[in-house]
């Protein structure tokens, strides 16, 4: 495919020069970044509205929606958030990391527009079919539960569009290298996006393997699709799709750390190796969804669930040290060298990119990562499968982690790419805290109710009308209430984000950005602080001692949570 995407010698691109970063910005790429980012935000808005309705239904005291609409909206929420919002934003990110950051032009912008239209058409199709009540099958669409053929077709359109965008990204990288638009190696952020894009390729191909036969089956062209194989193929798409988010998010963490405090990766070798670990091992994670399925045996499950010895987890543990470590070193170089944590106390907490980075990393790691590895353990999964612990885990990763990181980055894309003055800076400054606090309650409420056995995707835990009542402890109800309150707070945070974005884009003065940071009255940390220290060795005074203590505390928490889960399992009925 790359040969098709090669630019012809006659290709001409128009550039502007960014006054902040001195990078040349391809105007075609810029328009595509804007289009994809806007589409992402639109689906975030729809998905967020759905989220509110769902949370207010599962909060048993309110119990807003009737069952059919609850399941319908849940299907739409899953697709809009996990697929549409994420992938549109990632495509914007790929064009940014590929063309803009490498000073290069985007190849074949017309094809990129075609990809955009395919994705948009697919996403709209899925939403329409779901809202018409023709696809009450959940995001996972497990066969033999059948949806309208256009539901599967919509997903296929979206995936094909995304695949084209990824291929264009690779072609852009090749062109940039050939045309020597940058010196040295590719920046780490772009490198992380390459990892995300490689994962995206096999993710989207698995999606095709899952959805194309299912589409044929829904049309009546083939008789049946095996539910066990479908689950395997679907999760080879569904889980790695979230790992694309993960790799993109980690890349954005490095970007936010660079933008807000001028952090430079401590050791490029280490950080880059961690991304390689993702590429090699993270796809095995799809087996996490099949741990209590009939079919595969212990060895298959244990090998896959451990990502062949938790090597992808190791990748995340490396970033968990490298990113705060880079922030600490950058801060210590500014003179905040007292004690273990002065660098953190004196950090730019009012800068939304910084608070978004810290909250995103904290909730992603401490809640999402720890619970994810724990429930992804073969035997422990029996106490977690399809309970609220699962949405609790991925709301901490995908929402508190990835979504918040994407939100944080948006505040910098508006002046740099939209070239609009960012309005409502105070709102932007508070937004990560409001959203993060709300999501903390959501995740903890979900996990705590799941630990008490509450099922996910379930309309009524009072079981009114069922032949038997299942005893749900009242504390579980309380936890669902906490989740509901958290959802309202998070929605407020989401509305703040959307308001800042929309007000800035539509009413902000058109102006060239003059510095990278938004609310701090200081120079550009990225350009002025960082260049001086690239390649300078880390000496004792600036060594990341505080980070070392923080990661050890994190590990202690991890160990305690993990082994308490084995203890919980050990109290269960005997089963083999």
């Amino acid at each position, binding site marked *: 495919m790359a040969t098709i995407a090669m630019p012809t010698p006659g290709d001409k691109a128009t550039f502007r020069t960014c006054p902040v970063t001195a990078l040349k910005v391809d105007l075609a790429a810029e328009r595509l970044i804007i289009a994809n980012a806007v589409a992402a935000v639109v689906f975030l808005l729809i998905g967020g509205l759905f989220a509110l309705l769902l949370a207010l239904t599962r909060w048993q005291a309110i119990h807003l929606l009737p069952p059919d609409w609850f399941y319908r909206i849940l299907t739409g929420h899953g697709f809009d958030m996990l697929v549409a919002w994420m992938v549109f934003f990632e495509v914007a990110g790929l064009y940014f990391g590929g063309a803009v950051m490498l000073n290069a032009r985007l190849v074949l912008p017309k094809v990129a527009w075609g990809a955009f239209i395919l994705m948009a058409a697919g996403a709209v199709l899925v939403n329409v079919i779901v809202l018409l009540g023709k696809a009450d099958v959940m995001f996972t669409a497990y066969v033999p539960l059948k949806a309208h053929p256009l539901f599967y077709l919509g997903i296929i359109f979206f995936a094909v569009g995304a695949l084209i965008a990824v291929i264009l990204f690779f072609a852009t990288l090749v062109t940039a290298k050939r045309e020597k638009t940058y010196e040295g190696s590719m920046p780490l952020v772009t490198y992380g996006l390459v990892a995300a894009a490689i994962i995206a390729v096999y993710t989207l191909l698995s999606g095709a393997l899952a959805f194309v036969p299912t589409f044929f089956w829904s049309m009546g062209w083939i008789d049946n699709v095996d539910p066990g194989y479908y689950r395997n193929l679907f999760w080879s798409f569904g889980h790695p799709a979230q790992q694309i988010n993960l790799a993109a998010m980690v890349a954005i963490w490095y970007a936010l750390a660079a933008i807000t405090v001028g952090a430079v*990766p401590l050791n490029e*070798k280490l950080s880059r190796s961690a991304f390689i670990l993702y590429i090699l091992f993270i796809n095995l994670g799809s087996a996490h969804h099949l*741990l209590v399925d009939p079919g595969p045996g212990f060895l298959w499950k244990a090998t896959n669930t451990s990502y062949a010895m938790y090597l992808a987890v190791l990748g995340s543990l490396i970033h968990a040290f490298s990113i705060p470590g880079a922030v600490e070193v950058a801060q210590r170089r500014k003179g905040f060298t007292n004690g273990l944590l002065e660098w953190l106390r004196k950090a730019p907490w009012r800068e939304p990119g910084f608070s978004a980075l810290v909250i995103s990393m904290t909730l992603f790691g401490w809640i999402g990562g720890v619970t994810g590895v724990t429930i992804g353990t073969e*035997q422990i999964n029996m106490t977690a499968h399809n309970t609220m612990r699962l949405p609790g885990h991925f709301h901490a990763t995908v929402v508190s982690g990835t979504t918040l990181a994407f939100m944080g980055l948006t505040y910098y894309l508006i002046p740099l790419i939209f070239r609009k003055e960012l309005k409502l800076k105070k709102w932007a400054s508070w937004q990560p805290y409001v959203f993060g606090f709300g999501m903390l309650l959501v995740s903890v409420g979900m996990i705590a109710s799941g630990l008490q056995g509450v099922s996910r995707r379930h309309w009524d835990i009072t079981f009114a009308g069922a032949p038997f009542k299942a005893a749900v402890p009242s504390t579980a109800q309380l936890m669902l209430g906490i989740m509901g309150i958290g959802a309202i707070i998070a929605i407020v945070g989401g509305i703040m984000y959307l308001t800042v974005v929309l007000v800035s884009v539509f009413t902000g003065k058109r102006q060239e950005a003059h510095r990278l940071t938004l609310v701090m009255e200081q120079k550009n940390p990225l350009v002025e602080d960082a260049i001086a220290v690239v390649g300078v060795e880390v000496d004792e005074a600036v060594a990341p001692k505080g980070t070392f203590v923080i990661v050890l505390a994190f590990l202690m928490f991890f160990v305690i949570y993990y082994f308490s889960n084995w203890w919980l399992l050990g109290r269960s009925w005997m089963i083999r």
Partner: protein
Amino acid sequence: MLAPERIWWKPLHRMEKSWLIVAFSWCVLLTIMMPLWFFYGRQNVPATTFRTTPQKYQQQTTAFIEQYQVDTLNRLPVVAPPPDSDIYLLARQWQWTPVLQLEKGKTYRLHLSSTDVQHGFSLQPVNLNLQVLPGYDYVATITPTQSGEFSIVCNEFCSIGHHLMVGKIIVTE
């Protein structure tokens, strides 16, 4: 954000090295916990699976109910099978059949399958969860360690009546 110089393959800082060693050791421990529990733990994920068909599974369940039925509860048969026997639980929209009456401390081979769509076996408040697929006969060897009444909640979405699908297991002393 910035392009680093061409050669970035540099040795690690002391702290990075220490963290890498600590983190990797934790990963190794995480890995060996699973085989350790597999050999020494009393709760392991069942692996026995047979191919079946909805018709065949329906027949097996019907025969099982006829053989051991002792009572009826909410129009569902209550079945009290002897220990060490094969017991059948059938999932369909939106019902678990039959109600099982087991003895505490005794072992049973619990068969799980569906005759229509996917379902989720969620034993509450024990909180043991297994996936139930049509066409797959999943066999879990279980030993109840508590007595009392337990419910089986369906925790895989199985269309509109999903939340009504609750079954029962009664464990006697």
